[in-house]
């Protein structure tokens, strides 16, 4: 497998998909106010570039902070739950409840307590992103090799040591997967935050704000352009996580090591 294929193939598929997109649009005579063509979307993105850039910055900040909070708090929570099965049994159901309560119900409370804008947006992003981190990390923690666990018992390791030196590194592949999911959710979370708790300062809101705006203006190509921005932002996160995956695992984990 040559290195260049990593770029060539998705590109080729992309071309095929975009061709299909054009084709479908033609074939079914889909109007641009329903599904604009890629060209129209790019044109709209270019036309609105100033606005989109500013709003990408606004939303990106919320997404990044929410993502970091979700990864940090999610990891910490899983770690706390790894300390004792009792803690886990006590906490997990409530983590589930937090995850499963539609954010629209909680959003007004966040806004009331944290005020409209960044803090609430970060909180909403956090709410949307944190569970995949918790679920995966927890599964990683309990999937630890029993033989290695016995080694740590043999070493009289404290629970903290066991978690730090055995469970944390062992759970990395799971944790990173959770982080990747959180990465794709972070921009969506921040955009939802824009909807639910954001606003426009000086005429520029986040991507979510622009999404409602374009939507209510029937600027459908621009609407899709916000989707494009969301995707680009998401790719940054996923790219970051992939880099971390490579950094942390390439020396030892089966998902990376190429055995000759």
């Amino acid at each position, binding site marked *: 497998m040559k290195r260049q294929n990593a770029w060539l193939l998705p590109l080729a598929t992309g071309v095929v998909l975009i061709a299909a997109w054009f084709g479908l649009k033609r074939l079914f005579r889909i109007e641009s106010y329903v599904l604009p063509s890629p060209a129209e979307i790019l044109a709209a993105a270019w036309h609105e570039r100033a606005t989109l850039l500013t709003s990408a910055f606004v939303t990106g900040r919320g997404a990044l902070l929410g993502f970091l909070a979700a990864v940090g708090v999610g990891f910490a929570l899983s770690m706390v739950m790894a300390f004792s099965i009792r803690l886990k049994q006590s906490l997990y159901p409530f983590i589930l409840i937090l995850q499963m309560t539609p954010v629209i119900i909680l959003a007004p409370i966040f*806004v009331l307590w944290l005020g409209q804008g960044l803090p609430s947006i970060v909180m909403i992003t956090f709410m949307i992103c944190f569970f995949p981190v918790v679920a995966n990390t927890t599964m990683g923690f309990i999937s630890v090799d029993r033989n290695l666990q016995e080694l740590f018992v043999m070493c009289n390791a404290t629970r903290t040591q066991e978690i730090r030196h055995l469970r944390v590194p062992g759970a990395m592949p799971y944790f990173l997967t959770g982080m990747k999911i959180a990465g794709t959710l972070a921009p969506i979370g921040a955009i939802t935050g824009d909807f639910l708790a954001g606003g*426009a300062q000086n005429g520029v809101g986040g991507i979510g704000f622009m999404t409602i705006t374009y939507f209510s203006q029937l600027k459908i190509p621009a609407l899709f352009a916000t989707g494009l921005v969301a995707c680009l932002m998401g790719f940054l996160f996923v790219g970051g996580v992939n880099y971390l995956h490579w950094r942390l695992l390439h020396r030892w984990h089966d998902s990376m090591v190429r055995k000759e």
Partner: protein
Amino acid sequence: GKPAEVPIAAGAGAKPLVKVVLQTDWFAQPEHGGFYQALVKGYYRDAGLDVEIRQGNPTTIPAQVVATGRAEFAIGRSDDVIIAASRGVPLMMIGAFMQRDPQAILFHQESGIKTFKDLDGRNLMAVPGSAFITIMENTFHIKVAVTPTDFGMSRFLADKNFVQQCFLTNEPYYVRKEGANIGVLVLSDSGFSPYRVWYTRRSFAQEHPEVVRAFAAATVRGWSEYISGDRTEANTRIASLNPKMEPGFMDFSVHAMQEYHLVTGDPAAGDAVGRITRERIDTQIRQLSGIGLLDRPVTADEVFDASFLAAPPAPR
């Protein structure tokens, strides 16, 4: 209540301004124009108030914001205030900045809809739970199926039989631009005619009547001027706050407010900017109670007090 510690006196230039917050129900738009007019023209300042207009968004519950003290004033429909009151939220309407609600029902001429009766059996994209829907159904003996609104118009454009809730001041502009041949049914003609009001929490009205009064006077002045005077400055401010606000669109909105007499109502029938009548509030309470939306009985006195409003300017 305790005596007002805030020094208030309308027009008392030397005294420090009293800070108040107005929570709106949406992003800045011409439907809020009078408030911005009063703001940018300095009417609030002249009245001794330092007003901050805080924009709402789709999940803002302005009633909550006012009731919990995070804002002094908020705006909304009179039926929402009545409903909130029946849920124990102590609110007090001060004045109506729109005598007629801009909500309407938008349809394609091709759909053959002429009257409310023609909506029978159709899908209506609207905010679920809106009181007007049930009342309309009862009034005209029809039944509609409600689709939650997505705040968009794509589905409307794509389907000639699509019917959706709209603001007279908003959607028609865009769908006409796309070449749709549309018609509207104005809600205030459906037998249920709420006001758009500004309100405060009851305790604030009791403790700071001067503030409420000062705010009311400046607001009425702002609205009167916005709807029939020079609104350029207010519109510039609105446009600076909300990128959606293009000049053409704002002109359309204002024009719609004028055409449908949304702000002024029908002067011949005694309507005037700001005015709320007990009679209409009573009617609304009766209608809401009739469809079971009120948790407990509400009286007009609980929810509005016309006394804060100076005598309305004489109709021209």
